[in-house]
């Protein structure tokens, strides 16, 4: 199958056109005396990417297999873990969220649940102590805030 390169070639071509078109909308710099304005370099890049993506579509390479089924779900799960971690980091706090994130990641890599949880807890606490007290970089306390 040679779908990958055709598909992404098309996407990149679209990107090149949109990017190049946007570049033409930049107003001329004040005075207009500069030999090249803010749009010259982006226009050049749009042309290069456009040519490259055309080549990808015309002479595509052999595809690498995309993950399907269970593996794909796993991968999306990992991304969800990272996004939820970011979203709740400041409200819930570093220690709790990091424990959960590392434990979940480690568990999804086939570690036994209890060991995964221990890995998460230990690394979260150690990192918190090092960063907060050793390096004096404040990481969010969240709901564990003292006083």
């Amino acid at each position: 199958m040679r779908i990958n390169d055709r598909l992404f070639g098309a996407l990149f071509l679209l990107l090149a056109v949109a990017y190049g078109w946007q570049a033409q909308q930049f107003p001329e710099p004040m005075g207009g005396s500069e030999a090249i304005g803010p749009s010259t370099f982006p226009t050049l890049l749009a042309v290069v990417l456009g040519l490259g993506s055309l080549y990808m579509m015309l002479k595509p390479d052999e595809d690498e297999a995309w993950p399907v089924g269970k593996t794909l779900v796993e991968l999306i799960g990992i991304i969800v873990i990272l996004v939820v971690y970011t979203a709740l980091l400041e409200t819930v706090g570093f220690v709790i969220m990091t424990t959960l994130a590392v434990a979940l990641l480690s568990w999804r890599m086939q570690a036994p649940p209890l060991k995964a949880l221990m890995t998460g807890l230990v690394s979260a606490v150690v990192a918190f102590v090092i960063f907060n007290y050793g390096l004096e970089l404040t990481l969010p306390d969240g709901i564990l805030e003292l006083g």
Partner: protein
Amino acid sequence: METLNYLMDGFSVALTPTNLLLALIGSFLGTLIGALPGLGPANGVAILIPLAFTLGLPPESALIMLTAVYAGAMYGGRISSILLNIPGDEPAMMTCLDGYPMAQQGKAAEALTISAVASFIGSIVATIGLIILAPVLADFALHFGAAEYFALFVLAFATLGGITGKNPVKTIVAAALGLMMSTIGIDISTGQPRYTFNTLELFEGIDFIIAIVGLFAISELLFFIEKHMGEGESMVKMNKLTISIKEVIAVLPTSLRCGVVGFIAGVLPGAGASLGSFLSYTVEKRILGSKNRFGEGDPRGVAAPEAGNNGAANGALVPMLTLGIPGSGTTAVLLAMLVSLNITPGPMMFQQHADIVWGVIAALLVGNVLLLLLNIPMIGIFVKLLSVPPKYLMPIVTLVAIVGIYSISHSPFDLYFMVAFGVLGYILRKTEIPLVPVILGLLLGPEMEKNLRHAMTLSDGDWSVLWGTPLAIGIWAVAILGLVLPYIVGPVLRKRMQRS
């Protein structure tokens, strides 16, 4: 003589207690990172950059630590090659050929010792080469004008895929994507916001440290999950070391020769450490002729690629320091570090920041001595750490990267961006579009545009100025060669590397 004075000044920077300690930490972490299968030197340095920032280190200290990490990663790559037959990074691939057979014959400790000595010699030879060649090249590069620099940037991108690269067009696509990302934000010369979509966070442009960690570390995590699902733990076995001085001396000529070969491969654009170790191995095989038992556990077959890849790694620092043009992924990441410390690499750096340049070069020498000390008596520790299963290590490594990013700006926006870059990195790697040109584009974009502007302003908008001097024409010619050559010699070279 002048060079020697500078080098002495460099040592006075590198040998302060703090910097020495940082070099030691860096060497240790680097070896560890290099040893972990899958976590190559570029990833390792990328993950540690945010850490260097959060430590609030002065530029020379941060650079010394990261240079030590860089040197250490090249040493570390051999450990898993020899013990597990899995190269820790790509250049260590050739070390498997004789290293693993030696380990199977119960001579793992010997193989590790010999390879450590060979790595050391290769590095030292190349560092001496760097000391001699770098100032000369920097002086010469002072003659470069804006047009030459613009051509040089094109050359860097054109040769980045390397002679063995599969599809040079994809390298160009990757570079274009990176350069496009670099135009996001306020245009420095005109104040015009570009591609910001009126998002406040985008006005200052994309921070490449976030891009690096996302593209490399997060995408690595995704790949890891995909590839290693349910895979068991590996057993690592070590024997007691019984090696005589004679055996070490026996590999010295090989190490010296291969250090030189590696250095040359490293300096040339588009070659890099992988080709360095491959060339050293094949050249040495030829030189030894019928006297070699390469492939069956010949100690010289371990020494050759190790001296070669360490030589190449240091050789790659020559174009990076003197021209500001990195030859490999890892040097690109080191360059990112320099740029974010507000140091513009290139010939001017040798004049404006002589203390930093020579401090780093001295740190390379010091770091290699530390590494030799770390890697022979303390090799057991690394072997132990290597037997910690990745299912615990990978999440922790990822965590360190995330904390590093967060503590730079304390902004969740950056973390979302990092995750997005991770997904992008995964998709690009799946379509076999290399990541290093993306990073390099993001990094070099502003300089490239600046030089284009300069050249065009001087010529009053005449594009032919870009190829107006013999020097510029020469650079363009090499760049074009760099794009065309992979189509001709690439398939042949790749086949040979696979066969051996």
